[in-house]
């Protein structure tokens, strides 16, 4: 295994720029998720790392070996990478064993013990070895594809949305099996995904790609708790965005005076809290309050849509059985710190229902130019 370093990588198809200068470092032995909406260039980045396409400029380094850039292009077959495509891409004319041992030297291909070992690594029974790919379920195909990629002991494994074609139940199992196999093999892995839950739960670090640029690279917790901007915040989870005024490490907002993480310059700002930070209490005195407009009940938890006195609607995630009824007036408390994003031109444009953001409602903020933070 080795680390991966990508420097100032650019790529355009015709006149359409896809990557516009990406810097990324993947440390050896960890799993890095490459997260972004479809069309952000993440698959292109993966293909450049794999060597299926050549970058227009910039470089790719595996360990201390330059494989692309500076006029050099090591072909894919000499890079020592493992590749797990969407839907597995198992060779249909070969058995499971034939697929798994494809990348090995001729003498080792007949080694049944090795096949057993590799299938074992991905949590599959050796009985499957003589099946054809079309006799396997989608999840099994993905595991075989991973075993095939791991067999030649690659320096890095690239996974291109490997779980997106599986249905929900299978996806969770397959994710766990793949995560365990990668950890057991001690492989460096780069996982492309557009599913934030997948990225947050599987990865050691998450790289958020947007519009051909890297916008944030951090561990999952930091990404969720301190997103680089409101757009990233909306992409990795539900968010509540309020207009506020920052002074001395606290933000005054319609939900009261909130503690703010980090050093934020004084002045108008947009304040981010997560729905699970909102607690409903009995309305008391002059504390913030709201009216329950609707309630989504999920069993393990619920989501309340609260209308604030100013007309803005925010959501709160509620645990437990003690739920308010629709139409009830409740008091609102915020637990933990909020994140503040200073607004240059004043707070006026923040107010209104658009500020109540689920991922979809965050649309207005998408048009802002991306600020690269890494």
């Amino acid at each position, binding site marked *: 295994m080795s680390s991966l370093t990508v420097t100032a990588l650019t790529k355009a198809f015709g006149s359409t720029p896809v990557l516009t200068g990406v810097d990324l470092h993947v440390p050896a032995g960890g799993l890095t998720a490459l997260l972004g909406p479809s069309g952000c260039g993440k698959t292109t980045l993966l293909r450049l790392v794999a060597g299926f396409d050549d970058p227009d400029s910039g470089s790719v380094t595996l360990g201390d070996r330059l494989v692309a850039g500076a006029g050099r292009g090591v072909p894919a077959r000499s890079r020592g990478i493992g590749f797990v*495509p969407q839907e597995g*891409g198992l060779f*249909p004319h070969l058995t499971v064993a034939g697929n798994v041992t*494809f990348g090995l030297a001729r003498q080792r291909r007949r080694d049944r013990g090795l096949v057993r070992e590799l299938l074992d690594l991905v949590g599959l029974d050796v009985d499957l070895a003589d099946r054809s790919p079309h006799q396997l379920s989608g999840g099994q195909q993905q595991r075989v594809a991973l075993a*095939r990629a791991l067999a030649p002991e690659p320096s890095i494994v690239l996974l291109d949305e490997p779980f997106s074609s599986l249905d929900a139940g299978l996806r969770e199992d397959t994710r766990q099996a793949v995560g365990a196999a990668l950890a057991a093999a001690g492989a460096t892995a780069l996982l492309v995904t557009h599913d934030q839950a997948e990225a947050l739960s599987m990865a050691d670090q998450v790289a958020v790609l947007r519009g051909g640029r890297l916008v944030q690279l951090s561990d999952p917790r930091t990404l969720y708790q301190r997103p680089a901007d409101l757009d990233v915040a909306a992409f990795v989870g539900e968010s509540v965005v309020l207009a506020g005024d920052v002074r001395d490490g606290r933000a005054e907002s319609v939900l009261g005076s909130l503690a703010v993480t980090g050093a934020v310059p004084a002045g108008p700002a947009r304040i981010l809290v997560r729905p699970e930070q909102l607690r409903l209490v009995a309305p008391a005195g002059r504390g913030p309050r709201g009216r329950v407009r609707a309630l989504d009940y999920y069993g393990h938890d619920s989501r309340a849509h609260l209308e604030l006195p100013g007309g803005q609607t925010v959501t709160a995630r509620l645990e437990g059985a003690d739920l308010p009824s629709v139409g009830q007036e409740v008091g609102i408390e915020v637990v933990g710190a909020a994140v503040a994003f200073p607004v240059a031109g004043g707070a006026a444009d923040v107010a209104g229902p658009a500020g109540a953001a689920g991922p979809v409602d965050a649309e207005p903020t998408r048009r802002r130019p991306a600020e690269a933070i890494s």
Partner: protein
Amino acid sequence: MLDPASPGAPVPPAPRGSGVAARGGRRLRRSPVTLALAVCVAVLALLPLGYIAGYTVDVGWSGVRELVLRPRVAELLWNTCRLVLGTVAVCAVLGVGAAWLVERSTVPGRRIWHVLLVAPLAVPAFVNSFAWISLLPGLDTYAGALLVVSLSYFPFVYLPAVAAFRGLDPALEETARGLGLSGWAVFARVQLPQLRVALLGGSLLVALHLLAEFGALQMLRYPTFTTAIYDQYRATFNGPGATMLAGVLVLLCLLLLVAELRLRGARSYAGSGRGAVRPVRPAALGRWTLPALSALAALVVAALLVPLGALAYWTLAGAAGDLDVADLATTTATTLALAAVAAVVTTALALPTGRLAVRARSRVATLLERATYVGSAVPGIVVALALVTISIRATPWLYQTVPVLIAAYAILFLPRAVVPVRAAVEQSPPLYDDVAASLGSSGADRLRRITLPLLAPGLGAGAALVFLAVVTELTATLLLAPTGTTTLATAFWSASSAFEYGAAAPYAVVMVLLSAPATVLLSRNTRRGLLP
């Protein structure tokens, strides 16, 4: 065709490489050799058409008017059209009716009936017409021609109709029954509309084949464009009369072809991805069982037993006297050799076109692929006529040689190879190449371990289909075969034209035996149509 999947089994979609379609243009520029080869193939395929068009321009408007606007042409047009319309109607009734009985009713022995109803395809139409006219010499009328060609061509409707019945979702019929429709109303208002595409496709195929049919109609002495072209050719070699008749015929073919190509898109939509369809409860025939059985039996007797019986009778009758076993063996060997060479050449020619159509999806690639369809829609007699004239004028040293004959076969049967080759390329997307490369496999290694194994079934299927088509090809062979070279079809033709039925029959028997395997394959796999 030789699709590895059994009928009804859902074919897993091949994984797609990311953005293949979007990068078509780029890939087109990246594969200049494939592109150049595909262009050459298209030029070859369009050669006869180009010849006819060029000739028409040379003759000029007044010449065309003089040659085409004649009572004789009107008479041929009337003959051809009424035969095509009649045959299409009869084939539609026979094909859909038989398909319904076999697929959706409780008629006993459905599997056996299915094989027996596809089997007439193993008997070339000119052999079928030989059998009927040798037994009933009075069949040289419109009714006789209608009977014989309908019996030869109804499987072209039957096969797609069976496939369509199989693809119909029974849930729709159950819904209709739930809404209170009777059995007949379900057929008329639910099933028939869904069969429309299959029925139209089959009918167009019948019509295209009929326009190109020469042997069967010549034997029945029913004058149509093909027979008239042949007679003109015999009389005046390559006179303007024959060429202009060919022009009118080609125009009719192209009209039908445009309709066929338009329907093709609809067909792939209608037949796609239904997944596993629940088994259907067949309609109980009750007291109609016996009439249904009699109808099927009558059809099979007329379409299969009459020709086979006649061949057996004449073979036995001739065995005493004029059967030359050595001649038969030589002719069979010649035919097989020609068919083998044509199969290899045609499949090789199909490779660049099929590859380009999938790997570099673009307007140019589609046009090049369509060119092979257009070329093969030109009747054999026209292809032969064009190649005779072109080879005499441009390459006299090639006139009456095997390469010209092979070229004619390639033009006529290219789509039979292009379709399976294309399907095979579709099953081996560039993704597999990428994955193999990431596993350390070199270019040559990938060709050996990935590309060839994945393409082999498609190449084999294409070659087999071309091979079987060449074995029974009559018209082009008649005009283009080098002097002294006889195939099974031409040997049969010359003997039966001389009324030596006993000498002719054994050649037909060998042709039928050689065609039989293809028929078995067709009856097994009704998912795809018979022809591209």
